[in-house]
């Protein structure tokens, strides 16, 4: 997977879960995105894991996360070229 593919898929998952009409910045999170509650975070982590075939640590489910922190967690594991 190239880095461009990775970024496109990552964005796609965010939008599928949080809304097609939303654009995201790296420091977006539960405080800035209306739909992003704890349940949405669980769903988001699950979708990222499924789409990238990775497993994130359990605290990704419940801990305070942002678009940027999730992106690095997934990128470390998916290792796009």
């Amino acid at each position, binding site marked *: 997977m190239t880095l461009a593919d990775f970024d496109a898929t990552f964005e*796609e998952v965010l939008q*599928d*879960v949080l*809304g*097609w*009409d939303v654009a995201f910045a790296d420091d977006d999170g539960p405080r800035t995105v209306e739909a992003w509650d*704890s*349940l949405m975070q*669980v*769903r988001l982590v*699950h*979708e990222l894991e*499924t789409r990238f075939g990775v497993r994130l640590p*359990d605290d990704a*489910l*419940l801990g305070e996360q942002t678009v940027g922190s999730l992106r690095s967690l997934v990128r470390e594991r998916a290792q796009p070229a």
Partner: protein
Amino acid sequence: MPPALERGAATGDGRSALRALVSAGRFAEAWGLLRPLLRTRDEAWVWSAARNVLRAGARNEWSPPSSRSARLGILCTYTGADLADHLEIACRALDIDVELYAAPYGQLEQEVLASGTPLAAFEPTHVLVAPTAADLGLPELADDGGARVDEQERRWRSLWAGLAGVGARVLQHSFVVPDETPLGHLALRLPDSRPSLVRRVNDRLGAAAGSDVLLVDCDRLASRLGKDRWSDPRLWYSARQPFSYAALPLLARETAAVLAGDLGLGARCVIVDLDNTLWGGIVAEEGPGGVVVGEGPDGEAHAAFQEYLKGLARCGVLLAVASKNDLEAARGPFETNVRMRLGLEDFAVFVADWRRKPEQVEEIARTLGLPLESFVFADDNPAECAEVAAALPSVDTVALAGSPSTFVRALAASPRFEAPALTAADAGRRRSYQGRAQAEDLRGRAGSLEAFWSSLRMRAVVGDLDAHGALDRAAQLTQKTNQFNLTLVRRTREELRGLLEPGAVLAKTLALSDRFADHGLIGLALAVADPDDPRTAVVDTLLLSCRVIGRTAEVHLLAHLSRAALSAGFARLRGVYVPGPRNGLVAELYPKLGFTAVPGSAGRAWERDLAAHGPLESRWIEDAP
């Protein structure tokens, strides 16, 4: 799946196509692509896309077309938000306009047994009770198993009784039998092991449900998916959600299917192809004895598919054939091949000619007098499925692709075959529709309509609603009847029973037979006193099953109703018509029967002066002795 979307899904184009439609505001088209997928597919992108289409549509005051509405309360013992979210999508995909209320989790008895709760204020038509096996509080091995099972039965039954008090029908999720047990396979031999006790609780609830509670067999669904895929312990511990995201679409769809069945949206007829569907090979080439059925791997699979269809027929689903063949050749295997499981008598309509499939399907619908939404079309040829889906989008299509060994599973995956209950009428329905098809034939030859009616030698049994079994069937009729239904008032069994109690209602049911068939209980009429004019009886419900439309059965029913009204002291009978999407054919019923328009009713109410003109007379139907 529409082929373009199927290919697109793999590359992301399907999703982009949907996004493009949504940003162009073409919600109906996007939904039209998604709706068939949601009915069979579990992929997350399909459900995410549906959520996004519905959300964007709602912001633009668009909502998907629906044919029934429901107010569904959800009582979960766990975090139910994801289930509610998926249920809304699943209901929409099955044409139910649903309003949801999800109670805070764990608030079961509190919401049901207390008075003035938010659930009661929501006025649900249905309430889903969704617990998990963890709520049963069972040890791995109990020393008081019987008492624990009794206690659970009491708990859930008292909840059901409370919900009946709120006026809602109950949908109950069964308990998933736990897969991990330290007892291993020994658990099955011990009636008081945790897995055995969960099974026993499910059995008790199944037996207690009767026709009042709709059970969703979650254990069956979990087994189908595989129990290690069904649940995700991490989700349970971190979010109190007992099933994985892989399980949610299936659970939501099947729950919605049971609700749809209760609302009268289940399929009423499966139309099947013959060559390479019911048997292997082409009958015109192989001959009636040469087609592959009953022997060998493919033959056994075709036979199993026929047996499955036979099972559906026993549950009240009609079977029909739509085949591109010469009629004689198509009938051959049914008449002479002893390995066939289905016979010609199993089919309500048999169409074999050289027209396009959509035309054949339309003819079957016309012959049976059923709307197109009532049909599921199953064919091994994907092109013919696509042709039917394109020409008649309200017909559900099942493409039987590949080996015949997959056919049963493909048809069983359809969410359209959930019947709320088996009624005595289901057993006789097939014969009745066959009778209708023969009667249609006769109509072609009988000359005048009067001669046709007279040649049918129709016999009626008019009964009261409290007769044994009549309540279930009458409720089913109010739920399912769309065409010959003057007021479209839908009622559950409980609501009907409630009406009867004070004795303030005149109620008549009609069972009809003719020389071809016994149609069973096919008509219902209810009349109540006009609150402003106690000498006028208002026909609150008048409906007939499609299969007896055009037989003067309504006259017979009104004749009995008007006689009952006269003896109850009423001077007038008032009929009303409430227009709906498909009941246009009865808009002029009352004026045609000589009722006079009520001034100022805008063509919606008519009266007959019973005191002056007496009851109506029925000329073509005799009461059975």
